[in-house]
């Protein structure tokens, strides 16, 4: 208990330091490389998804290849409530997205968490791809591959962002998304250090042993599945206004793959892992896409290099004794 929380990758101080850094970096990057600062916004939004995904992967031991489904539920809730209810109050839309994800994940989770390993992974993938098919085929509802255009939202119940210029909106939305990120990340920190969180870790390490302690592991796995789905849905909902359009590719399996990528890149055994992974991933993806159309190749090399050189991800690298010694010499406040 004591040892784990002292690790940099599992400390709340690391989250605070990183949040301040993201807040401060935004205008600096905007000044140095105009247009690049939005990478940070995408980063913090996807970090929420990665955090949720990793509650299931890193803490419960269930690897999902279908969490894009919940990202899609989040994004399409924004699109559909706008299109059919003319709703632009973002918090209300996010609330509806959370309820939708709750219902959908409870239903699917009830079936899929009975399975482990590859059976779990494939079953959830099939469900996610079915939902993707729905977005594509039911074009009279979803707009098919043309998607749904997203108007600027009203945030905090009163602030209409419609009149804002491009850069102003991006900046306001950055800090709005950052606030959501801090809230969600803090709640996740509470969850993983709670008895509930430790019970998930027991299931990850030895499910049969957890059962001998009288734990109904099915209920806990289902709860973890639902919570992780809610996180991913919130992320998808926040993603939509920034992306200005929701299309079926937001629910495509490659989005699930990104969450796996982010968790492994950052280090799925660490609380900070998926957060750092998401930020770095978005950065690399943008850079790689700017360099070549074959950017998949660069990302492929990156993930292989991570797995070979540091299987515990970037946070694993950071927690090495030599790195810690350097940090203590620098007297950095983390």
């Amino acid at each position, binding site marked *: *208990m004591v040892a784990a929380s002292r690790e940099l990758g599992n400390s709340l101080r690391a989250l605070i330091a990183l949040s301040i850094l993201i807040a401060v970096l935004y205008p600096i990057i905007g000044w140095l490389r105009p247009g690049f600062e939005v990478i940070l916004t995408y980063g913090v939004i996807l970090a929420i998804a990665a955090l949720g995904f990793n509650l299931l992967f890193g803490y419960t031991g269930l690897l999902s290849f279908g969490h894009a489904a919940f990202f899609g539920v989040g994004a399409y809730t924004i699109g559909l409530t706008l299109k059919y209810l003319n709703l632009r109050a973002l918090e209300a839309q996010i609330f509806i997205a959370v309820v939708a994800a709750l219902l959908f994940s409870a239903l699917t989770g009830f079936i899929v968490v009975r399975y482990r390993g590859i059976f779990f992974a494939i079953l959830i993938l099939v469900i996610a791809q079915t939902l993707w098919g729905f977005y594509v085929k039911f074009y009279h509802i979803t707009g098919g591959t043309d998607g749904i255009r997203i108007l600027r939202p009203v945030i905090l119940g009163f602030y209409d962002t419609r009149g804002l210029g491009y850069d102003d909106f991006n900046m306001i939305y950055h800090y709005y998304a950052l606030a959501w990120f801090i809230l969600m990340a803090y709640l996740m920190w509470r969850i993983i250090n709670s*008895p509930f969180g430790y019970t998930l870790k027991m299931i990850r390490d030895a499910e049969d042993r957890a059962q001998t302690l009288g*734990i109904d592991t099915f209920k806990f796995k289902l709860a973890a599945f639902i919570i992780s789905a809610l996180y991913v849905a919130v992320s998808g909902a926040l993603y939509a206004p920034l992306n200005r359009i929701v299309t079926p590719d937001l629910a495509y399996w490659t989005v699930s793959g990104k969450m796996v990528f982010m968790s492994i890149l950052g280090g799925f055994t660490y609380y900070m892992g998926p957060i750092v992974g998401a930020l770095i991933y978005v950065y690399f993806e943008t850079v790689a896409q700017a360099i070549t159309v074959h950017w998949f190749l660069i990302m492929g090399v990156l993930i292989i290099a991570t797995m070979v050189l540091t299987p515990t991800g970037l946070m694993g690298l950071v927690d090495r004794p030599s790195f810690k010694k350097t940090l203590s010499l620098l007297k950095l406040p983390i």
Partner: protein
Amino acid sequence: MLGKILQVSGLRKYFGGVKAVDGVSFTMDEGERLFIVGPNGAGKTTLVNLISGYIMPDSGTIMFDGRDVTRLSLASRVGVGIARSFQLVNVFWGLTVLENLSIAVASRLKVNTNMFKSLESYKAVLEEALELAELSGLTEVLDKRPSEISQGDRKLLDIAITLALKPKLVMLDEPTSGVSTREKFEVMDRVLKTLHRFGASSIIVEHDMEVVKKYSNRVLVMHEGKIIGDGAPSDILSKEDVRRILLGEAYA
């Protein structure tokens, strides 16, 4: 006069043609310590699996603490006070020793569903986990993960996790298997001290005759699914047929 904690009668479990447990009956007094010995395949582990609820018997009854638990699920049996450990160390490898013990205690206290209070902040849990660590001699390695401690300590941790449930009956499947000769008596001393402290009755499956002779006052000998001897080790283990079964023809 203490009551009967366990009454097993006519217990039977066949796996296809294999009679793993074939009409086993015995009783145990409260607080009693019972060793089960027998050659490989005698049905010792199957018997433990049946009593702990891992598998259901084909026939027979198990009375525990005055109630029939024959058809009770694994989780319900933990609830009434039956707990076990495994032959192979089965602990939570990703957690530290203290975390292993704390979450086991928290499981018994049924606080697992709390999502927002930190596990560390449960004073009662922490105190009990530290007491268990003290009794099991794990105080020095609290911050270590199971992969970083000795095999003997892992065994002790495994058993301490079981005892965190405060069971009335503890079943230990070969507590000294895989432990070095040097460590095995140390492990047994610790285990029995802790069991005594908790006032639990115990069934211990053991292969090591040195351990059995040193620590038992009642031994059950199993062979081909049946009990072929039950009594004090000095009487039972000196019998000709028991010696032949346990040690093989050459040593009898």
